[in-house]
């Protein structure tokens, strides 16, 4: 069989690992709490997974590029603060602006990330970290002054908490986003370049591609996704608050990598990332409902993720 075909098979298998794992988690959990199998609980998990999933979608784009975005937490927080502040003014025009403004903010931060990474060629790991620190600073400065009463606009709440015929809107938003980004990656030149850069930026540039533009695009897309995550979470909590993004950074990255996306960039799978987001949400929820102590939750979480990665690699080596 061609090596290529093997790759394909592997990719899909990797992508399936989190799905299988999710199934196991539910079934195991169900032996203690039968309610885990109830549609209500599962839909709710999907709704909550959507927040993580939206963030993971953005993170994946950047990781495919061979970079990483550590500014997720405060892009998320900033977008939440911005959107709730606008919505809080009660002025219809500004209320309508809440979501677009937040997304624009995310994209703007993406530009700043892009400048550091593709113009100054600072390792994204560090530059986005610094950007995150600055965003924190801005947020702190801003809440120091007088803030308009902040609250989620009706649209925001409906997007994150509403549901039609049982389907949480958040889930729908997430899936639409996935389809959109999937289309961008698979069907557009931009997507092709993205993957190419993830494999070798030099060779891509020598093919006559303005690679910086692509890097910018990717980081803007990721920033917008983080912002969307912020909007959804603000809608969910019906408010914004400082460091609401901090709990999301590591789970987001974990979701992407256990989905089979190579942290080195160039290859990855959407199905996997979706599965990753769902798996992490489920695992966290099950551990929390089972009232397992923080210490053991950390240990179990880490061990399971490790063993999943090992499983993926051992299989890959057999192939």
């Amino acid at each position, binding site marked *: *069989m*061609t*090596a*290529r075909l*093997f*790759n394909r098979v592997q990719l899909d298998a990797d992508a399936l690992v989190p799905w299988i794992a999710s199934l196991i988690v539910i079934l195991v959990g169900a032996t203690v709490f039968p309610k885990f199998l109830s549609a209500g609980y599962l839909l709710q998990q999907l709704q909550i997974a959507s927040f993580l999933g939206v963030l993971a979608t953005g993170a994946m784009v950047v990781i495919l590029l061979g970079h990483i975005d550590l500014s997720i937490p405060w892009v998320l927080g900033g977008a939440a603060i911005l959107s709730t502040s606008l919505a809080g003014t009660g002025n219809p025009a500004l209320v309508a602006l809440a979501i677009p403004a937040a997304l624009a903010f995310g994209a703007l931060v993406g530009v700043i990330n892009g400048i550091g990474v593709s113009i100054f060629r600072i390792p994204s790991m560090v530059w986005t970290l610094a950007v995150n620190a600055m965003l924190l600073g801005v947020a702190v400065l801003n809440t120091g002054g007088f803030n308009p009463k902040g609250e989620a606009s009706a649209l925001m709440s409906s997007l994150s908490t509403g549901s039609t015929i049982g389907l949480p809107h958040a889930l729908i938003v997430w899936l639409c986003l996935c389809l959109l980004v999937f289309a961008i990656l698979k*069907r*557009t*030149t*931009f997507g*092709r*370049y993205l*993957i*190419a850069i993830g*494999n*070798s930026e*030099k*060779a*891509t*540039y*020598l*093919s*006559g*591609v*303005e690679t910086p533009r692509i890097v910018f695009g990717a980081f803007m897309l990721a920033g917008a996704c983080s912002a969307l995550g912020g909007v959804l979470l603000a809608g969910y909590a019906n408010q914004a608050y400082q460091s609401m993004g901090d709990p999301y950074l590591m789970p987001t990255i974990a979701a992407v990598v256990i989905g089979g996306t190579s942290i080195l960039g*160039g*290859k990855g799978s959407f199905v996997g990332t979706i599965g990753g987001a769902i798996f992490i949400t489920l695992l966290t929820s099950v551990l929390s409902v089972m009232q397992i102590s923080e210490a053991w939750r950390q240990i179990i979480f880490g061990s399971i993720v490790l063993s999943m990665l090992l499983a993926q690699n051992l299989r890959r080596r057999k192939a």
Partner: protein
Amino acid sequence: MSDGKRELIRFEEVTKAYGATLALKKVSFTCQAGEVRAVLGENGAGKSTLMKLMSGVIQPTLGKIYVDGQPVRLESPGAARDLGIVCMFQELSLVPDLSVRDNILLGAKEVGMGRLSKGNLTRARAILDRIEGAHIPMKRKVADLSLPERQQVEIAKAICRAPRLLILDEATSALNASVVQKVFGLVRDLRDQGTGILFISHRFHEVDDLADSISVFRNGEHVDTFQKGKHSYSEIIAKMIGQSLTELFPPRLSPIPDGAPLLKVDDLSFGDTLRGVSLEVRPGEVLGLGGLDGQGQMVLVQALFGLLKKTGGQISENGHPLQLKSPRAAKAPPTGIALVPEDRKTEGLIPELSIRENMELAALGRHPFGLTDLDNGIDPDLFTRFTSEMELVCRNFDQPVSDLSGGNQQKVALTKWLALQPRCLLLADPTRGIDVKTKTQIYRLIRQLAAEGVAIILLSTDYEELIHLCDSVHVFYDGAVRQVLEGPELTAENIIAASLNVNSVPVQAAQGHPAHA
């Protein structure tokens, strides 16, 4: 050389499989001390695989390896080194971020993990000096060396490990004739001291020059081994490619063009690597860039492809000055300049991606953020036209490029750009490490493109190529054009003289080449 040579290493029915590919099939092969054995074969014939097996980089799938008659398992280069087997790899085994010194000490037997002994350094220095590497400082980072300089260091590194079996896998592919001579002198001395040498090269005059005996490989099989001189070149080539090859360099298909130049370079300068270079190339002309490596040819090519900022002088096309701000600007019609870079594995291609994805990468740019791949303004048949012309060997276009042998990789790299139908084609050493058959195919293609009116600039380290393909050759020395050779004065001697910046040269080892045979 003495008779009754000792057997150093013996392969018995050795097979090496990479997944589905059989790189070597039941190869039995012996190699003696005090002999230079040339290993010939097309790209992908299995030469590198053979060498990698001997030097412990990879292990055989089946079969036995004997050293000094004892069955051995060479499970790592370290193990091979301890048995006195040292390989100079085709993909150089130098560490870019370390200094020359550190590279020479790295993994040396007497160093291991312990304290660094300086012993090797003096030896290495001596060797470097002997092969025209005197100018290479021990403290210089390898990354800052040119490709030939690296090959020189690699040779020094290999030899100062006092090998019993020295393997040279295309060790000299980037070196110019005069250095090659020095290296060969060194190798002969080693041989006379009883070292066994395995020598892979795609340059016949080198084989002719150095080898005592010749082994021929064809797609993974050991076809034959014989003393040099037993067979004529055409016979050897026939063994290599399983058919006879009429001639290496196809005849020109069109008269040397005159008329308005397509591309005009006026007094181009860049730092001290390019000093006031002026030249023009007409549609249908093949213009050669010669000279020792690193004399500015490559810089010129990079400038023409929009890779350099703040260059002095001017580049104009059909009289219109060009603003070459990036490769994107260079490739965009109507400018239509294409560059097939020197290093196909890191610059020309993306090995992990499929052949199709690689070929389309350059073309995609046509409609920047076009909604779908397919709409890239390139008729897919264009790819197939060139791939079939060059007889690309592959299962299908979805195979990753890394599966292909170097020669075939190069065909993909060419197709990728030719499909854009460029008006000016820049070729940087397009046949380095490529076997005869593939070479002829590429040469034929160059001729055709010229006939179709493409202006071609060919940078090459192989002067035979320059002589037989180019209408005129600009020989570079120290960032400037030392001499422009045309017609009858276009001879090996003159090229070498010009590139060494002297007026008369010792007779070169250019005699007896397939082109003449």
